[in-house]
């Protein structure tokens, strides 16, 4: 058992953008440990994707192809990947922490009597093996995890942890791997992906965003945040719980299940800053956070922070902004 195997994600011949972050993570982990890094693509008709990978610094590119892998099913992927991992025998299996990986990777690890270390945000050197850092309690704490078993170590890395641009170029040979797969093994029938309705709010293009979170307490209180957004000429956005409650439409949600934004100003009101929210806004140029909890993880990414009662600070700020604008 040796080497790092990175499972790249694609749908219909298009990469998931996080795949190359996972590839960068895999190359770096392999270099640290002095072992080889390989990559695998799963699907059907993967020719052009695999030739893209032959230009990277990799020992091997496995193309795992089968008619039954054309569209994703957990049963299909699990059966094929179990066979691939037995064949390639990697010490580490590294994946991007995508929705698809969340659907199959825990069960894949189970097939090898392992537990996936999910949502890794950093990899450090440690005595007796690497240390994998993940967040606990909605980002309030970090935790160091170690793999403590003889089998392969399964990892998924959080979006934005590793840089796709840092993937090292080189050359790699392709190995086709045809899994044994029967139609009867696939129990679920996936439908075509769809969107609910045409999105009318494009937060990704907004210059200024005022975003509201759970700290607002009640739906009627959102008005004070709306007034601040209006005073600044900013778009109004929200964290997931606000949209879950139906207080603002889903299309105003920022985070891993909503929109990814990178405005000049992101003003977070009553948002604690769980990782799922931070991945959607950490590209913002300036972040201002107003929160009653001084330990809220939003302050980790904020340029300016105010600890206090948003019900006093937000109206005062609206007044001050309007006065400054004359």
């Amino acid at each position, binding site marked *: 058992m040796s080497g790092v195997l990175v499972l790249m994600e694609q749908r219909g011949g298009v990469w998931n953008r996080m795949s190359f972050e996972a590839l960068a993570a895999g190359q770096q982990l392999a270099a640290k440990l002095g072992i080889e890094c390989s990559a695998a693509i799963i699907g059907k008709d993967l020719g052009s994707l695999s030739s893209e990978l032959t230009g990277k610094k990799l020992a091997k590119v496995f193309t795992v192809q089968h008619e039954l892998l054309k569209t994703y099913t957990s049963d299909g992927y699990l059966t094929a990947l179990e066979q691939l991992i037995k064949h390639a025998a990697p010490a580490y299996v590294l994946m991007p922490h995508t929705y698809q990986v969340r659907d199959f990777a825990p069960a894949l690890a189970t097939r090898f009597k392992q537990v996936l270390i999910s949502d890794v945000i950093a990899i450090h050197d440690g005595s007796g093996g690497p240390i994998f850092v993940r967040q606990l309690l909605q980002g309030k704490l970090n935790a160091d995890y170690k793999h403590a078993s003889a089998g392969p170590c399964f990892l998924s890395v959080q979006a934005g942890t590793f840089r796709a641009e840092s993937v090292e170029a080189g050359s790699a040979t392709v190995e086709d791997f045809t899994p044994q797969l029967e139609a009867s093994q696939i129990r679920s029938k996936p439908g075509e992906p769809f969107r609910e309705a045409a999105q009318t709010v494009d937060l990704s293009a907004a210059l200024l965003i005022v975003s509201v979170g759970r700290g607002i307490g009640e739906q009627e209180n959102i008005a004070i945040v709306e007034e601040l957004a209006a005073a600044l000429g900013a778009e109004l956005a929200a964290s997931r719980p606000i949209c879950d409650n139906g207080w603002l439409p889903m299309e105003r949600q920022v985070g891993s299940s909503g929109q990814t934004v990178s405005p*000049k100003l992101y003003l977070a009101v009553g948002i604690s800053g769980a990782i799922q929210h931070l991945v959607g806004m950490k590209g913002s140029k300036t972040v201002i956070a107003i929160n009653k909890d001084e330990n809220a993880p939003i302050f980790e990414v904020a340029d300016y922070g105010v600890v206090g009662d948003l019900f006093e600070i937000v109206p005062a700020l609206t007044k001050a902004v309007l006065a400054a604008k004359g």
Partner: protein
Amino acid sequence: MKILVAIKQVPERDAPISIGADGKWIDESGLSYTINEPDAYALEEALQLKEKNGGEVVVLCAGPEHVTTTLREALAKGADRAIHIEADDLGERDTLGIAKLLADAAKAESADLILTGLQSDDLGLGQTGVVLAELLGIPHATIIMQVEVTGSSLKVKRELEDGWFQHVEMPLPALLTIQSGGNKLRYATLMGIKKAKTKETKTVQPAAPASSQAIILERVYLPEKQKKTEMLTGTSAEVAAKLVEKLKFEVRVI
């Protein structure tokens, strides 16, 4: 139709966090607990399915004595029965170990449908449901917003990234991990709380002691700041004036 809902008890969201003496977990003394939020949505989905299709909702939770408060709340909201897997050593069991505990209890119930939240608010590994399905040998789907039961099969709406969704069909029995926001959560009524007292909570013991873990949580600590945050202090008016200064001269958006 019998629906089993696996729930977890977690620290209250606003609970002040301090690191325990061993540096491996938080200090739980004086902590208050609540149902893991995604699990509350899983319970809500189960209760609505029962209202539509009839049947029974059984809630299942592993943990020490204090998790029974969360089970009682679930009974007050409308679950019919509860199963408490009494285990004080969850910290010594990894995801696979805990899923095995749940799987043993689930086998005895042979439910048509198992629901659980997509991840926990404390550990956030997001795996227990999928591993449980794998151990039971039943199909699963994750991050589910809507569930429709038609005879012996299911049609679910699965959330994908960036505002995309997908329908997936599968046969029963099956396991689903439920995303928050699919339904509106109900509160327990006074009548429900009264009724809960007459409902059965079965206590079962783990079949096996904690065995060696595949992954080990070595240390917890406060995260290092990624940015140098300038904290602004003063009265609301003073803070507002300071923020306007920054917006004008540093961020340059006014």
